[in-house]
C-alpha cells in the first residue's frame, strides 16, 4: 500500500479523504492556498504545502505546483477529490510522467468520458440507453415531423450550436413540430449564426438518477446502486438520496448493468458515476459519466457500507476489488443535505465571513440511525469569498426513507451556525415538504414548489403546538432559575410564578398551563390537549433537544429581548412566553413601523463594490442597475426597487462592504 498520499483539494472533501487515509495508515499531505492557511484540512494532514495565492487558478488548479508538492514531500499518489483537477486528463498525464499514481481512473477513460460526443458514442456501442433522437442535420419541417413521429412525443427541437435555452422548442404534435422547427431555426441563426437543428425526445418531469460504479485495474467493474439527485436549484444539487424512491429492483439492475457495460468499454478502473435522466415511467437515458468521486458519494457509502475513497486508493495501488456484484447489498435509506453559506431568503446570495458559531449535530449511530457530517470548517473559521460556499454535507441513514428524512430534519434542527447566512432553514423546509416526503420528485421540484423563492415557514398545526410546548419548557427552566437568585426578601421559598401562561409565537397566541415539574412537564394547550415535554436543556444552550410526547425533537433557541427566537422544522419565530396578564397588556402595545430603509441602498451581502453605475442627483427608474457587488466571484447587480433620485453615494468602487452597509442614499 502507499505510505504517503497527497490530496490535491481543500475543504470537506480533503478532510474526508484524510480520514480514510489515516485509517489505512497512510500519511497525508495537504496543499493549501494563502487563503486556506488556517483551514481544517491543513490542520488534519500530516504535512501541508503552500501552493500559492487564494485564486484557484493560481493554486489548486496549477498542475506543476501539485506535482512539485508531491516531489517535495515524497507523496506516492494523489487523490484529486472532486472539482479542481479531478477530471483533467492532463493532470493524470503529468502525474504519470512524474511517476506518481493518480487515485482515479486511467487517463484514457477520463478523456473518453470528458468529451460529450465521444462518451455518447461509447454509450451507443455499449448498448446504453440514450435519449432517442436524430443527430443528423434536418433540412425541412416535413422531415422533422417524420423523425418526431418515430421518436414519439413530446420532442425537443434544439440548435446544434445551442446552449442557454436559445433555439430550443418543445413540440407535442406534428403541427407544433413544423412550427417549432422554423422558429428554432431562425432563433439558432440569429443567436449562434448557425441554423442547424436536431430533434430528440423530450422527457417530461425528468429525474436525475445516477449509478455509482467501481472498477479495478484487473478488468472488474461493479455497480453500487443509484443515487437520486432531483432536488436541484439551478442545476446545483441540494438534496441527494440513495436509493431512489422511483426505481424498482428490475430497473436498478438494468441501469446498473448498462453503467457497468459503459465503464468496461473504457476500461474504467476507479470510482465513477454514470448519470441518467429518468422519466416518471422509469424510462432512463444516459447523460454523461463523471470520472471522479462525486460530492454526494456518502449516501452510497451509507447504504452499501463501502468506503469509496478506500476502494479508490486500493484500486489505484493495483489491488483487485474485494467484492463482487453479488456482495453488494443496499441496506436502508440515506439522505444528504448540502449546507451552503447562502441566504435562502435573499435569493440564495452567497454569504461570507466568520463562523461565530459552528456546532454541527453529534455524529454517530443512535438507535439504528446514522448521522454523518462531512465538513471542512470549524467554529471561528472563515467562509472566504474565494471558493465554493459549501459548509458541510449532512447525511442521515436509517432503515427506511421516512425515518431517514425525520432524522435529517432533526439533525438540521440541531445544526447551529452563526455569523453568516446559511440555507438550513430552506433545507429544513424541504424536509417538511409533502411532495419530497412522498418521493414525487423531478428536477423542476424547487422551481415548481418555490416559484417566488423561499421565505421561512409559518408555524401552524402540529408544529406550532410542538413549538409552543418547547417555548413553554424553555421559559419554565428560565423562570425556575430566576427564582433562585440570591438576596431575596423571604427566607423561605414562597416565591412562585404563574403556571398559567400565554405563548406568543410571532403574533399567534397559545394559552398553556404547566402541570407537574421535575423531569417532565405536562403542557396543557387549548381544548385539554396535553403534551409531555422532557429535556435537560439549560439556559445558554443554543439547541433545545428532548422529547415531546415521547418523540425526539430539537429546536434552536436564540435569546432576544424578553424572549427567544425558536427555529424548528423550517419555522423560525420569535417566541415570548408571558403570564396571561402580561399577554393581555402586551396586546395593547402598538405596532411600530420598521425603520424606513427604502431611502437607502443597503449591501445585501458582504462583498466588494466593483462598479457604481449612477452618480449623485441621477434619476433612476425601478429595475435599473445602481451598482455591482462581487462576492464569491459572483457578480451581483443591485437594481433600484422603485423610481429614485440618488442623493448621496457612500461607497466607492473597490470598497469591501459588510452586510447592510449603506451604499447610497436616495432623496
Amino acid at each position, binding site marked *: 500500500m502507499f505510505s504517503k498520499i497527497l490530496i490535491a483539494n481543500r475543504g470537506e472533501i480533503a478532510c474526508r479523504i484524510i480520514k480514510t487515509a489515516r485509517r489505512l495508515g497512510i500519511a497525508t499531505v495537504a496543499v493549501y492556498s494563502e487563503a486556506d492557511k488556517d483551514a481544517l484540512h491543513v490542520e488534519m494532514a500530516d504535512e501541508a504545502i503552500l501552493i500559492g495565492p487564494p485564486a484557484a487558478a493560481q493554486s489548486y488548479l496549477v498542475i506543476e505546483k501539485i506535482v512539485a508538492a508531491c516531489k517535495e514531500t515524497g507523496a506516492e499518489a494523489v487523490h484529486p477529490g472532486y472539482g479542481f483537477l479531478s477530471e483533467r486528463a492532463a493532470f493524470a498525464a503529468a502525474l504519470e510522467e512524474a511517476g506518481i499514481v493518480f487515485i482515479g481512473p486511467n487517463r484514457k477513460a477520463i478523456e473518453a468520458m470528458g468529451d460529450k460526443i465521444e462518451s455518447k458514442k461509447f454509450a451507443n456501442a455499449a448498448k446504453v440507453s440514450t435519449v432517442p433522437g436524430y443527430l443528423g442535420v434536418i433540412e425541412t419541417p416535413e422531415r422533422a415531423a417524420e423523425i418526431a413521429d418515430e421518436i414519439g412525443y413530446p420532442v425537443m427541437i434544439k440548435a446544434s450550436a445551442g446552449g442557454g435555452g436559445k433555439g430550443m422548442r418543445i413540440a407535442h404534435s406534428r403541427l407544433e413540430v413544423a412550427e417549432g422547427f422554423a422558429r428554432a431555426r431562425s432563433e439558432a441563426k440569429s443567436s449562434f449564426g448557425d441554423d442547424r437543428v436536431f430533434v430528440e425526445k423530450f422527457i417530461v418531469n425528468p429525474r436525475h438518477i445516477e449509478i455509482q460504479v467501481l472498477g479495478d485495474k484487473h478488468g472488474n467493474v461493479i455497480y453500487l446502486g443509484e443515487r437520486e439527485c432531483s432536488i436541484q436549484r439551478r442545476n446545483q444539487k441540494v438534496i441527494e438520496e440513495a436509493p431512489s424512491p422511483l426505481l424498482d429492483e428490475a430497473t436498478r439492475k438494468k441501469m446498473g448493468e448498462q453503467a457497468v457495460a459503459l465503464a468496461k468499454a473504457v476500461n474504467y478502473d476507479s470510482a465513477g458515476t454514470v448519470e441518467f435522466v429518468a422519466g416518471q415511467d422509469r424510462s432512463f437515458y444516459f447523460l454523461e459519466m463523471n470520472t471522479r468521486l462525486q460530492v454526494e458519494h456518502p449516501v452510497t457509502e451509507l447504504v452499501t457500507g463501502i468506503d469509496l475513497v478506500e476502494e479508490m486508493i486500493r484500486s489505484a495501488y493495483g489491488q483487485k476489488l474485494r467484492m463482487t456484484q453479488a456482495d453488494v447489498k443496499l441496506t436502508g435509506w440515506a439522505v444528504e443535505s448540502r449546507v451552503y453559506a447562502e441566504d435562502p431568503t435573499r435569493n440564495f446570495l452567497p454569504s461570507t465571513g466568520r463562523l461565530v458559531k459552528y456546532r454541527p449535530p453529534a455524529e454517530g449511530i443512535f438507535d439504528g440511525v446514522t448521522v454523518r457530517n462531512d465538513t471542512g470548517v470549524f467554529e471561528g*473559521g472563515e467562509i472566504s469569498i474565494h471558493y465554493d460556499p459549501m459548509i458541510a454535507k449532512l447525511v442521515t441513514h436509517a432503515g427506511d426513507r421516512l425515518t431517514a428524512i425525520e432524522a435529517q430534519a432533526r439533525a438540521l434542527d440541531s445544526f447551529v451556525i452563526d455569523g453568516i447566512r446559511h440555507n438550513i432553514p430552506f433545507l429544513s423546509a424541504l424536509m417538511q415538504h409533502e411532495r419530497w416526503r412522498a418521493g414525487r420528485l423531478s428536477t423542476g421540484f424547487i422551481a415548481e414548489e418555490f416559484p417566488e423563492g423561499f421565505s421561512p415557514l409559518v408555524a401552524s398545526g402540529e408544529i406550532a403546538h410542538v413549538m409552543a410546548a418547547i417555548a413553554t419548557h424553555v421559559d419554565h427552566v428560565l423562570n425556575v432559575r430566576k427564582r433562585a437568585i*440570591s*438576596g*431575596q426578601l423571604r427566607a423561605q421559598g414562597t*416565591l412562585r410564578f404563574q403556571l398559567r401562561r400565554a405563548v406568543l409565537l410571532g403574533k399567534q397566541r397559545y394559552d398553556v398551563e404547566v402541570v407537574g415539574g421535575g423531569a417532565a412537564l405536562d403542557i396543557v394547550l387549548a381544548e385539554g390537549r396535553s403534551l409531555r415535554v422532557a429535556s435537560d436543556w439549560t439556559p445558554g444552550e443554543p439547541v433545545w433537544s428532548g422529547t415531546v410526547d415521547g418523540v425526539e425533537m430539537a429546536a434552536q433557541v436564540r435569546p432576544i429581548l424578553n424572549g427567544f427566537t425558536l427555529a424548528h422544522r423550517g419555522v423560525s419565530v420569535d417566541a415570548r412566553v408571558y403570564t396571561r396578564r402580561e399577554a393581555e397588556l402586551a396586546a395593547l402595545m*402598538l405596532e411600530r413601523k420598521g425603520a424606513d430603509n427604502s431611502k437607502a441602498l443597503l449591501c445585501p451581502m458582504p462583498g466588494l463594490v466593483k462598479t457604481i453605475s449612477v452618480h449623485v442627483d441621477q434619476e433612476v427608474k425601478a429595475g435599473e442597475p445602481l451598482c455591482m457587488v462581487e462576492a464569491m466571484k459572483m457578480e451581483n447587480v443591485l437594481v433600484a426597487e422603485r423610481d429614485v433620485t440618488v442623493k448621496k453615494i457612500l461607497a466607492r468602487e473597490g470598497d469591501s462592504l459588510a452586510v447592510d452597509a449603506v451604499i447610497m442614499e436616495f432623496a
Partner: protein
Amino acid sequence: MKQMLERLDRRRARARLGGGEARIKAQHAKGKLTARERIELLLDHESFEEFDMFVEHRCADFGMEKTKIPGDGVVTGWGTVNGRTVFVFAKDFTVFGGSLSEAHAQKITKIQDMALKNRAPIIGLFDAGGARIQEGVAALGGYGEVFQRNVLASGVIPQISLIMGPCAGGDVYSPAMTDFIFMVRDTSYMFVTGPDVVKTVTNETVTAEDLGGASVHTTRSSIADRAYDNDVEALLQTRRLIDFLPASNTDDVPLLPSFDDPDRIDMSLDTLIPDNPNKPYDIKELIAKIVDEGDFFEIQEAHAKNIVTGFGRIEGRTVGIVANQPMALAGVLDSDASRKGARFVRFCDCFNIPIVSFVDVPGFLPGVAQEYGGLIKHGAKLLFAYAEATVPKATIITRKAFGGAYDVMASKHLRGDINLAWPTAQIAVMGAKGAVEIIFRADIADPAKIAERTAEYEARFLSPFVAAERGYIDEVIMPHATRKRLSRVLAMLRNKKLENPWKKHDNIPL
C-alpha cells in the same frame, strides 16, 4: 364591621381607577399602559404594596379644590423583582396629567426616604406633564425635595428611571440624576423646554420626537441608556437589569445560579484577531463568549459605539464590562467614548461590581473638533474613574494598547489588579509606521531602510512581551482560556480590600 371593610374596598376601587375609564382608554389608545398596569408588569405577581393611595392635593386656587382624585397623580409603594425588594413610584398620566403637586412630591419623597433607609433600589416610571401650575412654588419646592433625595441616594442605592411618556421641565432633572434612564420609542420624550418655547426663543422648528425622543437621547445626547419598543419590553427589561444589580453599595452583587462551566474553553477565540492588524473584529463576540450563557446587558448601546459597556456574569456573579470596539472608529477613544466609559466605571465602583476591561485601542482620536470639544478633560474622566475605582479590576489586552490610551484602559499603573494580554497584544507608544518615522527621521527618504526599521520595531515592540518583561502584564494567556482565567481571577479578587484616602469627595474633571 363588615360595612367598614366594604367602605375600604370601595375607596380602594375608586383610587385604583385613577383618572377614570375614559382616560385609561385614551392612555391605551396611545399604546401606553396605566401607572398601575406598569407596576404590575415590573413587580412579581401580587407583590406590590401600595402606599398613600388616598392622598389628595391641598390646593385651593383656580378651582382646584373642586377636583380631587385619590392618589394625586402618582402611584407609590414597594414590591419585589424575582424576590428582591425594590421601591417604585409611577406617574399616573390619567390623573391631572401626572403633574407634580406638593402632595404628589411628598408621596415620592416618602418612597425615596424608605428606599434609602432600607437600602433597596428605587425605580421611577415617568409619564407626566411637569409641575402642577396651579400650585405654583409649592410644586417647585416639591421638585427640589425630590432632587435632593436623588443626590443623597446616588451611589448608595441603584436608581433607575423609565421614561414612558412626556417628561419635561422640572420632571427631567430627577431622572437625570439617577443611574440609568430607559425610554420607550415613539411614546416618550424628554426636554427642558419644549418645541413651542424653542420656536419662540431660537426660532428653531422641531418636533417633540426630534427634540427629545428616544432616538435622540440614546444616540446623540446620551441622556438615555436604552430605548425599547414599548412599555412591556421596557418594564420586563428593567426586571432583567435589576437581576444584575446589588441592592445597595453595602451589598454584594447578586448570585444567579449558572449552568455555564466557568472553566469553559472556547477555541474559536484563537482566531478572533484577524491576521491583518487593520481589519476590525467584533468585540461583542468576545464578550458573548466570555460571560455566562452569553447573557450581556448592554448600557448605551447606540451611543459612542467605539466603546462597549454593560453587565454580564461570570460564575453567576455580576461583572461590569468595558471594551474598546474595533468595529466602530477602530475602537479609538474620543470624548463621547471616554465619558460613556467613565460613567459606567463609576457606577460599577459605587456598587461593588468588578470591572473587566477588554482593550484594543489605537489611541485617542486626533482632530480639531475633539480638542475644541475638550477631549483632554473627557479623556481624563475615564482615566480618573479607572484610577479611583477600588473594586476588583481585571484587564485583558487583545490587540492594540497604544500611547496614553494604554494607561487609561485600566492599566497596571492605575491599580489594575490582574492585567493579562493575548499573544496578539501590541503594547507600545504607537504603531510601527509612526514610531519609525519619528525615531529614524534621518532615514525617511530611504524606503528600504524604513521598511527594515519598521520590521524591527514590529518584532520588538508590537508584542505583549516588552510590557510583560516589566511586569506591567501579569501573564500572557491563550485566547481560548480567557473565560477560565478570568473566572479564577475574579474568584481570587472577591475579598479584595482597598480604600482611597479619606476625602469629602473627589474632584473628577467634570
